[in-house]
């Protein structure tokens, strides 16, 4: 029931003169947890609202399962949404909040009126609604809160109520708009686990909007990274991390950010990084090389670098080093056993198979590795 695929075909949207979404194609599989990630203003929330039906696309269509729902009202799409602000009805108790989607769908307008409704609504239906509400509350462990008002709840509890309201009526898919961003760091990590568990348990389709790459990386089956109204890359978290399709993706994913160094491939395709020749072959021209902090190695030869700062993060140390060549800095990650100090001189080696090459247009450039060449 809660497993419908969602397809977007050629969706575009502008607000006035601003293009917010440009020709988006996206297929979300049944039961998939897909994250839309990007900086604020990249169009991810608009895209979610278009799927929800709260916003109409200028062009393109939205499919739920096989049905084209582009022209349908949000209430007819059978989707549930969790808002960043939770959007709980402040004047209703938690119980009434969770019951609202059911009452709206099952009861007629007169039966929903405050006093008259009690006389008009069939008792069996009301009992069923009650049972469903209790079940949803149990799932999220908020049974003891059912008679409170949202104003009396903590952020985490409101979050659970919002989730309960979403799952009370087996929707075709769950849409979540930055649902964890109003929680403190510790609770956020906890709710991340719970959301992932909930997804596994329900087997439902989740579309999850976030600006936080950690949330996306830890929970998603697939991630669609959006930049300036386009999907820059769609793939598994590993794909995005290990094989970023563009320089922008490489920059966005990963913390600390990837190190970027100027490079060049000569006429024969031999790549020189920051003046150091390597065993990498690529198409001739200027390049940017990306190397993750954990992939940089230290040794007896390679790029000379001076340690500027050492940050200890328990198991890891992050070293910020200055490259004398162009005064840029790189970050490298070392185990806690290493004992570097500020001012130490290091030699940095870039393992060729770990280097990500990008052309001047920002696109990934395929690379080959020859036999090892003397540095």
């Amino acid at each position, binding site marked *: 029931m809660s497993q419908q695929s969602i397809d977007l075909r050629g969706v575009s949207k502008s607000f006035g003169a601003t293009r917010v979404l440009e020709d988006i194609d996206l297929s979300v599989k049944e039961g998939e947890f897909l994250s839309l990630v990007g900086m604020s203003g990249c169009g991810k929330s608009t895209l979610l*609202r278009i799927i*929800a*039906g*709260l916003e109409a696309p200028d062009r393109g269509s939205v499919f739920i399962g096989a049905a084209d729902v582009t022209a349908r*009202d*949000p*209430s*007819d799409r059978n*989707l*549930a*949404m969790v*808002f*960043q*602000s939770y*959007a*709980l*009805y*402040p*004047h*209703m108790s938690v119980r009434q909040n969770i019951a*609202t*989607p059911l009452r*709206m*769908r099952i009861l007629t*307008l007169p039966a*929903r*009126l405050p006093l008259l409704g009690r006389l008009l609504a069939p008792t069996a239906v009301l009992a069923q609604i009650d049972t469903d509400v209790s079940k949803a509350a149990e799932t999220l462990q908020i049974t003891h809160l059912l008679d409170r*008002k*949202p*104003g009396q709840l903590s952020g985490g509890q409101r979050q659970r109520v919002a989730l309960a*309201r979403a799952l009370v009526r087996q929707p075709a898919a769950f849409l979540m708009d930055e649902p964890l961003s109003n929680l403190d760091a510790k609770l956020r990590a906890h709710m991340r686990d719970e959301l992932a568990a909930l997804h596994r348990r329900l087997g439902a389709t989740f579309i999850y909007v976030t600006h936080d790459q950690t949330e996306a990386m830890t929970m998603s089956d697939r991630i669609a990274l959006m930049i300036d109204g386009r999907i820059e890359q769609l793939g598994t978290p590993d794909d995005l991390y290990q094989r970023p399709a563009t320089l922008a993706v490489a920059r966005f994913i990963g913390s600390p950010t990837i190190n970027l160094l100027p490079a060049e491939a000569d006429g024969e395709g031999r790549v020189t990084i920051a003046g150091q020749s390597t065993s990498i072959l690529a198409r001739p021209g200027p390049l940017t090389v990306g190397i993750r902090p954990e992939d940089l190695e230290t040794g007896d030869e390679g790029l000379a670098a001076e340690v500027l700062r050492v940050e200890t993060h328990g198991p890891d140390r992050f070293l910020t080093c200055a490259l004398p060549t162009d005064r840029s800095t790189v970050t490298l990650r070392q185990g806690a056993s290493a004992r570097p100090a500020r001012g130490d001189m290091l030699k940095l080696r870039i393992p060729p198979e770990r280097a990500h090459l990008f052309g001047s247009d920002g696109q990934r450039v395929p690379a080959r590795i020859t036999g090892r060449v003397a540095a």
Partner: protein
Amino acid sequence: MTDAALTPAAPARGAIALPRGLIFVAPAVLLMLAIYILPIVVLTGFSITDYRLGALRWEFVGLQNFRAAFQDPVFVRALANTALYAVLVIPTGVFLALGIALLVQGRRHSRALWETAYFLPVTATLVAMATVWQFLLHPTLGPVNAAITWAGFDPVSFLGNPALLIPTLALIGIWQVLGFNMVLFLAGLTAIPNDLLDAARMDGARSPIDRFLTVTWPMLGPTTMFVIVTTSISAFKVFETVAVLTKGRSGSETLLYALYLEGFEYSNTGYAAALTLIFLAIVLVLSIGQTLRMDRRVHY
């Protein structure tokens, strides 16, 4: 800095803050005594005497003035007129304003225009506008009756027919209060988070009526309460239109106008003081709950 260095400063600050606060509030306190407290005491005193302004002798009459008030046909009529006026003005002035606010709120480009148009009567000097209304509603010279006769009806003597006097005053009262209430409702509507309306749509509130009943109306609760209270208080204070248009003729006195006549035209100070206390009691009943809630505003 050590604790020792800070300690001497603490009592000193307490010591200077004490008289300083009193100096700051002194002018306000003196004015409060002169304008509010003393007059209320004097008013209460007057109300149990037969004092007339300028009279040399006066006597205590106990609650006689209050008993007289409720046997005074003029005052009872004024009370009834004011109640009728309030009954006409409050529901129309509140719910019409809500309707206008709902319509205005949806207009993105023309909102300022409509706001201005509906708010203009609030800023206009009512005494002058009442004169304009008198002319507008004139049985032979005014365009309103011209329109009525053009539509095939007999001209209506809005300010001649005694039965129509209070409804006519109420019409002008509604005209004046609509813009004010509209702006209050607009403020209330703007405070409703858009997410809630979106959530209601996702939850299946398909029609605007459904969304209004699920979100807008309950969220407007405090605003509506406030608008009703302010509208009722201003309805019970209706005076300008009476003073300009009817001067209380044909039994059209309102509470405040009757009070004005007794106190300042006829100089029945003691009796007028009793009427004033009755008027004050009505206004207090209407406003006290609202005012007490002001400090801890209703927040869900």
